[in-house]
């Protein structure tokens, strides 16, 4: 069966199945299990409305439990076994991993990514948001800077391969070097600095995201605060740094953490640009190097990523709870 037809059938079955489930389970609850007739209809209605939320939630909870909660436990357990999965080795995988030079490089590089990419994207996003705030054609400018968001990491990597190409007739970077009289260099093979050239790609993609959110936040600032500052004689820089930025600090924090999480997941850029060579490995790409070869090691790397994400997760949950109160 061709995958296309299989896909159509899956859509029909999936959507139809969902509707059938919700319709039938509600009917079952109202008419068969707790009917609003018989000896005590009032109690039955109360019971039915106690159970109904769980009917609504069940498919989602089941899918999330299976695809997101179980793997946390499953991965951790798997990481305690050897490559073949039949021998319990305790924290052996973690020990060999931390002793591995490649893993330490990946960990170090990942910390660089987490430091640089969210900071640069948020800063540039804020800058563009502020600069375009009062421009009549600001929306067009913003839309163009936002555009890379729609491009895949693989596509973006290819786009930047052209920019970095080690040939002054293809790569614009080397063309500029050529123009000022410098020889061509392959920036992807420059030790240490090549990491930053890879980060540029993600910053290029994420600046638009930061800009859109921060621009909305800037619009939400009460005019009076800005006007009062101007009347008091503040110059534009003081207005921006002392009046506007403090008022959107919490949004800046949200943008920053969202990008941080993303940085810890993206393996595509390193995989496409350098394949992890020349000292550019990061944890997600290091994990993919072991995927299909040594599941014990791969899950151990994944669990290290989870531990790095954990503080952000806790912070997010606390924010959400505080907001609900």
């Amino acid at each position, binding site marked *: 069966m061709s995958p296309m037809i299989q896909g159509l059938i899956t859509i029909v079955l999936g959507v139809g199945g969902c509707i059938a489930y919700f319709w039938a389970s509600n009917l079952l609850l109202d008419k068969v299990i707790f009917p609003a007739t018989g000896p005590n209809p009032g109690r039955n209605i109360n019971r039915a409305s106690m159970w109904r939320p769980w009917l609504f939630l069940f498919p989602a909870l089941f899918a999330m439990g299976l695809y997101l909660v179980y793997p946390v436990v499953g991965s951790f357990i798997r990481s305690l076994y050897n490559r073949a999965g039949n021998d319990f080795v305790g924290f052996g995988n973690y020990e060999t991993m931390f002793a591995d030079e490649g893993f330490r490089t990946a960990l170090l590089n990942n910390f660089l990514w987490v430091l640089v990419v969210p900071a640069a994207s948020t800063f540039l996003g804020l800058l563009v948001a502020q600069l375009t705030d009062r421009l009549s054609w600001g929306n067009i400018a913003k839309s163009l800077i936002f555009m890379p968001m729609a491009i895949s990491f693989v*596509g973006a990597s290819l786009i930047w391969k052209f920019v970095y190409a080690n040939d*002054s007739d293809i790569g614009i970077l080397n063309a500029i070097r050529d123009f000022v009289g410098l020889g061509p260099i392959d920036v992807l093979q420059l030790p240490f600095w090549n990491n930053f050239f890879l980060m540029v790609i993600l910053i290029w993609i994420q600046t638009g995201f930061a800009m859109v959110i921060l621009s909305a936040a800037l619009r939400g600032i009460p005019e009076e605060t800005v006007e009062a500052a101007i009347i008091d004689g503040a110059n534009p820089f003081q207005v921006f740094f002392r009046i506007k930025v403090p008022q959107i600090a919490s949004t800046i924090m949200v943008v920053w953490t969202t990008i941080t999480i993303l940085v810890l997941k993206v393996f595509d850029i390193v995989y496409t640009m350098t394949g992890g060579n020349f000292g550019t490995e990061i944890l997600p790409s290091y994990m993919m190097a072991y995927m299909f070869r040594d599941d014990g090691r791969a899950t151990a790397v994944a669990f290290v990523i989870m531990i790095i994400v954990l503080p952000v997760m806790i912070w997010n949950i606390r924010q959400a709870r505080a907001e609900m109160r």
Partner: protein
Amino acid sequence: MDNIAGTKPALVWVTRISVILLVLLWLLPTIGLLVSSFRDRDQITASGWWLAPFAVEQNFQFKASAGNAVEEDGLFVLRGDILPEDGATIERFGGTRSAPTAFAPGETADLRRDRFLTVQENGDFVYTSAAEITRDPNVYFSSETPPDFSTDNYDTILTSDNMDRAFINTLTVTIPATIIPILIAAFAAYALAWMDFKGRGLLIAGVVGLLVVPLQLALVPLLQLHNAVGIGQSFLGIWLAHTGFGLPLAIYLLRNYMVGLPKDIIESAKVDGATDFQVFVKIVLPLSFPALASFAIFQFLWTWNDLLVAKVFLPSNSESWVMTVKIADDLLGSRGGDWGILAAAAFVSIAVPLIVFFTMQRYLVRGLLAGSVK
């Protein structure tokens, strides 16, 4: 605000110029790729894409056919035109491989052993030799060729490189993976927004937590699970995986939106005797359309652009490759130096997301704001 204190005209200009520079900086890489995708392979390596509108100087080799030689005044003479098309001009020429551009047009090159070569600017050449011409003589020249834009790269990539197959595969992965989570998430979001029950706050916090669980954790255990229940690496497997991974964001976005719906409508419907199921289907779902659209766009872009999940949950043979895998694992290796083909492939893969992006940007922005601003 333009005329009040605190804004200076100089600063306004600085602002405008820096915005223009930033936008150019952001667009430049993509424009480079777009221009390159329409250029001929030889032209790409001969001059940068920023020089694409201008003529390119390229080196050529022409093999004159010895059979056309005629005998004139005791000399063997071979005449002809080395330029295949009009509009181009000869810049330099030469008669040997070691010095292919030693002479200017109009000059006569002495090729030793009584052989001479003259090439005119328009491509006419005269080759004379005292001995009979038995082997085809080579003429080397550099010429300015006019810019050559065509869709050849796209033709190649779509017909001979299986990219059409990858395009269909991507579409096959994306559409069910976008549609199926929506309904499941909508019901759950309604329960979390409008039904009162014990543990609701805890569940919402749980969803927020699951938003950031790294996908990397899910790969090994779920692939084992899929293998154990017989799904294995297949399209069904990737639809299920994308559905599971997309649910937290879907529920979170939809709940945030549904909570903001006017309370009166929902309560008066309930007073009139509507059940939760009816309220959901007839009132909440239609009103939530903007949020549903936002999520659908997110999920579409994310599944279309995904490389990680496709690499793990789809079989790794060329029949099942989606476009991202095709580019990253196949084309970058087999077509590594063929920039025109690579650029065309990249554009085929990013065209649909770009169209979706520019036509539905409004919903995308709204979704981002609902998901992030607190």
